[in-house]
């Protein structure tokens, strides 16, 4: 599987992904499409009862944006692992930018894997979701 157009080197950035601001409609559609009907993401009354000032985005919505960045960059079958940590709540109106940087190259068995550091931040540069992925170069 060849990466296009050049073989990436440690320290290189992968193509970024920017998304539209997260609206309440985004959250409603994601709740239905994902099957995660936790009311904390769509029901303001429920969110307030549990001490939040507003509903907030599903962490897995932002993770899906990171997944889009990865599958835009390499064919999906090249993705061997994908791990994220939810470092801050993603708020309504956050506009998420996804970035990735090559951390290291690892040769295992007969294939070369590259480890990519992942960050999803809002329009103020505040990280919401961070993580990494292993992608096969071969």
């Amino acid at each position, binding site marked *: 599987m060849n990466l296009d157009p050049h073989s990436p080197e440690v320290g290189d950035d992968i193509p970024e992904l920017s998304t539209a601001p997260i609206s309440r409609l985004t959250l409603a559609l*994601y709740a239905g499409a994902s099957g*995660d*009907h936790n009311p904390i993401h769509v029901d303001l009354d429920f969110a307030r009862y549990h001490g939040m000032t507003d509903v907030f985005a599903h962490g897995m919505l932002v*993770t899906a944006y990171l997944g*889009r960045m990865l599958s*835009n960059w390499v064919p*999906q*079958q090249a993705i061997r*692992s994908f*791990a994220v940590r939810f470092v801050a709540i993603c708020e309504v109106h956050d506009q998420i930018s996804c970035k990735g940087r090559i951390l290291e190259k690892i040769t295992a068995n007969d294939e070369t894997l590259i480890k990519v550091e992942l960050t999803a931040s809002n329009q103020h540069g505040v990280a919401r979701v961070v993580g990494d992925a292993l992608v096969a170069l071969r």
Partner: protein
Amino acid sequence: MIDPQFVGFELPVHTQEVEKGRLRFFSRAIGETDPVYLDEDDAKAAGWRSLPVPPTFLFCLDMERCNPYDYLETLGIELGEVLHGEQSFQYHEVPCAGDRLTFRSRITDIWARKAGTMEFVVRDTDVFRGETPIAELRSTIIIRHRDNHES
């Protein structure tokens, strides 16, 4: 406090069919524009059997069981106190629409921090198509206990 004896607790095994319409709905909801995820003809032209399951959708398919919050109830966790802490996926194969996938989950760790005001529960899920391993998921949730609710 969550009883640490629940480590090892196995959730009911369930099997889900991957539906094309649902994949398209999901892809639209996450703003996907790559036609491979939206149009079966484009997917086939790219070499897929049908629409491929996007990287995070296995997490969603696991929520298709009768009650996706079943283990929270078993462990005595209130849904409104739950935050998602971490999520990981190890992939062996990309499944496609039409596949029937089986999910086997168990609780693998439970611990507390900050004098028990924050608790953590880890759940591991193995995904199979028949006997073929497809992926492994690990989900860590954080339970934030509050003393009283403000109106």
